[in-house]
């Protein structure tokens, strides 16, 4: 008969022996560096570099309801892990993004300006518009509703303009339109499309009103379907959340805060109800865009000094698709505070 104390002692020995199988050499310095880079800032992330919205009682109530709904209805679900192999997005759609200032050649300071890149899952980013040594800011990419054109803002000492490029399956075509605009000093003149995709609009820097331009450079009168002033304002939803294209959900990211330790994507109705927290295997620093069909969100990460983007499905099974992986941080990285990300609505 097995003696009780002996069994526990033997079990402990066997468990210790089993644990010892996991001992292997490791590089503490490398682990530390990666952990610090992955951890992100020691503050709550998900707050974009937008002007702080004016807090009123209404939003305070929304915030409280949101917190209560989150604590009461959160459901932990599975999520994919780090290092998932690259997969092509279901629609092979392009994603356009602008970049932050980057490191210059070795020994030089941070370089100003901004680039625009096109990327799709499984492919390397394509440079559409370059910063030209830090002298040019290319910002606010925006696909037309049919996905066949890409508009973005260009600003330099020579002035400001909105550029519209044609987009095909191979990237940007040579069909380019450049519309000079009057912006407000250094601020970018971010374009927005009319609902029929034939006109672009921007906020005039001097008067703060919406100017509509035809793709032939004309200045037609505004009509129904043209962007309005409210379309140019940043999201003022709580926690830096972004609203889905269908308007029925919002999403934001958390970092190590309750109710989910570690990074999580939270999806809820616009009133904060039905909140679900999806644990992530990564710690993104920003949530930048919804997919046009409202089924995925695009997250950005800085993993060990390499910029990555992944698309996360907001519904089960919460698939994760790498869009851009391991781009050196001195290269193309996108900060929502500097510009925008635009997800092509329909792949040509």
């Amino acid at each position: 008969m097995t003696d009780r104390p002996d069994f526990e002692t033997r079990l402990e020995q066997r468990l210790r022996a089993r644990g010892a199988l996991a001992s292997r050499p490791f590089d503490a310095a490398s682990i530390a560096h990666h952990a610090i880079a992955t951890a992100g800032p020691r503050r709550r992330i998900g707050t974009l570099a937008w002007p702080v919205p004016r807090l009123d009682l209404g939003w305070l109530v929304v915030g409280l309801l949101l917190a209560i709904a989150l604590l009461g209805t959160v459901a932990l679900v599975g999520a994919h892990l780090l290092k998932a192999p690259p997969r092509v997005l279901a629609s092979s759609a392009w994603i356009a993004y602008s970049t932050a200032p980057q490191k210059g050649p070795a020994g030089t300071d941070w370089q100003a300006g901004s680039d625009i890149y096109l990327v799709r899952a499984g492919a390397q980013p394509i440079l559409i518009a370059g910063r030209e040594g830090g002298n040019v800011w290319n910002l606010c990419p925006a696909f037309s509703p049919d996905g066949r054109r890409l508009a973005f803002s260009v600003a330099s000492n020579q002035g400001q303009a909105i550029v519209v490029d044609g987009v095909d399956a191979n990237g940007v075509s040579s069909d380019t339109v450049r519309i000079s605009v009057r912006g407000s000093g250094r601020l970018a003149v971010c374009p927005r499309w009319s609902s029929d995709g034939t006109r672009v609009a921007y906020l005039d820097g001097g008067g703060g009103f919406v100017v509509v331009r035809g793709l032939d450079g004309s200045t037609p009168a505004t009509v129904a379907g043209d962007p309005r002033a409210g379309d140019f304002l940043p999201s003022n939803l709580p926690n830096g959340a972004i609203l889905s294209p269908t308007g029925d959900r919002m999403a934001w990211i958390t970092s190590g805060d309750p109710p989910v330790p570690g990074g999580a994507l939270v999806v809820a109705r616009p009133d904060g109800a039905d909140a679900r927290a999806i644990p992530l295997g990564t710690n993104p620093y920003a949530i930048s865009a919804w997919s046009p069909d409202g089924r995925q969100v695009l997250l950005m990460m800085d993993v060990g000094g390499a910029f990555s983007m992944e698309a996360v499905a907001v519904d089960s099974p919460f698939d994760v698709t790498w869009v851009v992986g391991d781009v050196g941080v001195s290269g193309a990285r996108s900060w929502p505070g500097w510009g925008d990300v635009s997800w092509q609505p329909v792949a040509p």
Partner: protein
Amino acid sequence: MTSLVVPIDDTLAGAIALATAGDETAFARIIQAHHDDMARVCFVICGDLDIAEEAVQAAWPIIWRKLASLRDPDRLRPWLVSIAANEARQLIRRRRRRAVVEISVVATATPGVDPALRIGDLDLANALARLDPDDRALLALRYVAGFDSTELGRALGRSPSGTRARLARLLERLRTELSDD
């Protein structure tokens, strides 16, 4: 001429203070001292070396962010191991959808090793695989990390007495499953 000699605090308490202030080298010292312990505990919980490694790697960014919340430097080891164990439990739960629980066939066979020991290791692995993640964590923290009842309770969110009772039931179960009578 007098000089002011500032004693260098090279204890782990000093490393914690420096790491909390953002010193990456000090953080690496903490990792050097405890990474192996965390990996062992995670492997007993996960049963898979890759998943265990993933759990430990996932723990370190969390630890970096929360280091300032550690009030008592003497609690560093149980605090670190608890975070790693929690990550391991979460990874296991996420993978529960898999119909087959894979037993990591670790290359432990060495020339001259008694095959009976190899079989025993597989029996233990199988028995662990049939436990839920909380029970695996309980065993790993108690017998691999050497936690006492209070530390176990704190790590698992239970009272010390409740933890002892659960451990006793677990031992009875394993005694039956691993019986060599």
